[in-house]
């Protein structure tokens, strides 16, 4: 079981309220991603759940029990840190076995569990090495191994992939998702990378300045962003946000159109402009367009589109894919 409930959780550092007051329910077995720009309080929130920071106010319940004042060692949660935080003086075997040793588990049984975890994570060949002799990806696996052996109620991941290179990040993303599918344990994952959030999460929590902006499945956030912030944050490339006359015409303060929801033509479209930069990814081409009277806009076109820098272009948003936002930034 690993149901985590936050009620009115508040965290202040001195006079600064990093998390003003927050409620959240995380169901057992869910993969929840906290996402937001740096400094939005997502890591602090994770550390509050872990018990590494004390709450200023409010309650944290784990499986219905009030854990607000329970020390981290007793919360039965496992954490994977951004820096891996392996014990440099211990071998991989001892690193993974450490939580079991702390739990007072019989050495032979612990050894079995370590071997099993190492097998799952492809670490068997490295069990007698020290962290210093491993690559970044292997270290990350050891950190995960150390977390899974204790069969925690929930896993907490604090930006675990941000120290890895892009290719490895993609692999580890997949591995963590597979791990979640096989273990079915609650996972809370903090990242600033919305691609990680979209690809891994059952449920995404978008945070800004300690507030929850929206909670929902990846596609809910993508299709129905609750406000301008979420609209701009989720999706890559970013949604084009347009104010002024075009928005007023639709009865909104701001309208948003995703780059993939704009049709292109040579002329006769709604907006006219010229291509400033064409980024060719092979499968897609991102056209950065300077639109007359509006400004820069990004358009996702097919890989075979040949438009290049300086070309005149005409854009038409798909009418049913336009998002409308009111003066308070909220979706209409």
């Amino acid at each position, binding site marked *: 079981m690993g149901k985590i409930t936050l009620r009115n959780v508040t965290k202040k550092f001195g006079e600064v309220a990093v998390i003003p007051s927050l409620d959240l329910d995380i169901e057992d077995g869910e993969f929840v991603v906290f996402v937001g720009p740096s400094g939005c309080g997502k890591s602090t929130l994770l550390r509050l759940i*872990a*018990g*590494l920071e004390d709450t200023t106010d409010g309650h944290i319940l784990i499986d219905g029990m009030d854990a607000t004042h329970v*020390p*981290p*060692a*007793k919360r039965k*949660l*496992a*954490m994977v*840190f*951004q*820096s891996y*935080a*392996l*014990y*440099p*003086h*211990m071998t991989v075997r001892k690193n993974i076995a*450490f*939580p079991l*040793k*702390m*739990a007072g588990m019989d050495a032979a049984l612990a050894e079995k569990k370590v071997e099993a975890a190492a097998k799952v994570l492809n670490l068997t060949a490295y069990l007698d090495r020290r962290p210093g002799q491993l690559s970044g990806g292997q270290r990350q696996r050891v950190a995960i191994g*150390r977390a899974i052996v*204790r069969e925690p109620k929930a896993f*907490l991941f604090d930006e675990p992939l941000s120290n890895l290179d892009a290719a490895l990040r993609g692999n580890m993303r997949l591995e963590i998702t597979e791990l979640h599918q096989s273990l079915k344990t609650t996972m809370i994952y903090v990242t600033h990378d919305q691609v990680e959030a979209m690809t891994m999460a059952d449920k995404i929590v978008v945070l800004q300045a300690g507030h929850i902006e929206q909670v929902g499945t990846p596609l809910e956030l993508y299709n129905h962003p609750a406000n301008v912030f979420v609209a701009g944050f989720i999706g890559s490339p970013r949604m084009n946000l347009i104010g002024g006359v075009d928005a007023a015409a639709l009865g909104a303060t701001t309208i948003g159109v995703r780059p993939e929801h704009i049709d292109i033509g040579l002329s006769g479209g709604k907006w006219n402009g010229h291509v400033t930069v064409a980024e060719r990814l092979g499968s897609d081409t991102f056209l950065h367009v300077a639109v007359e009277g509006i400004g820069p806009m990004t358009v996702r076109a097919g890989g075979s589109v040949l438009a290049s820098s300086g070309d005149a272009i005409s854009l038409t948003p798909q009418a049913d894919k336009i998002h409308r936002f009111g003066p308070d930034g909220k979706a209409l």
Partner: protein
Amino acid sequence: MARAVSTRRKLGFTVAAWTVALLLFFPILWTFLTSFKTEAVAVAQPPQWLFFDWTFENYVAVQEQRNYFSFFLNSVIIAVGSTALGLLVAIPAAWSMAFVPGAKTKDLLMWMLSTKMMPAVAVLVPIYLIFIRLGLLDTRIGLVIVLMLINLPIIVWMLYTYFREIPGEILEAARMDGATLRSEILYVLTPMAVPGIASTVLLNIILAWNEAFWTITLTTVSAAPLTKFISSFSSPQGLFYAKLSAASVMAIAPILIMGWFSQKQLVRGLTFGAVK
């Protein structure tokens, strides 16, 4: 680009360095040489350098007059004991200052260090009186406690500096892994700080071994360490330079040998964290 240094300048620096080193080392060398001279040769004018009749008679005489090994044993017990006791107090202290610092932690550290700036003799009378009252005069335990207290600021400071180098996330990881405070310090912090702790131990053994003011003032016979052994040759029967030198060599030899073998560790310890 490496800085270009001409051969001539290099030679100049080398000669200068050797000169300074020899100047610093000369008293020890002279003591060593004198310890192998007869008393007459020892005071001869002009001094004789290497070409005299080398003799071990001073060492034999010194050992006959005083039992070297009882002093040696006291020195070992006092140096090791005060360092061990110091670590026991300083590790938790340095832990809390490094990992859960308060608003006044820096002030506290500075205050601790400032006690080292006070002349020891300023607290001689109170400590002497306390020692009489508690029956600690001329006891090893008394000296262990005093030397521990004297060196404690240095032990705490050194450990604090090493602990600061250890990433806090690793200790947090230990906490998440279910470690109690005791396990965290025992299994994670201490092993990671071993190089730092080793340098601290070495330096403090040296400091405690060489400490003369308190060891000479607070002991007479039964707890007297090697410092007392040396000083006891300096006055009563007039000045016997050769015997005094022999006693000095015997007293400093153990720590000199230990320092020689551990100099790498010491240098690493004293410059730890200076360059990353």
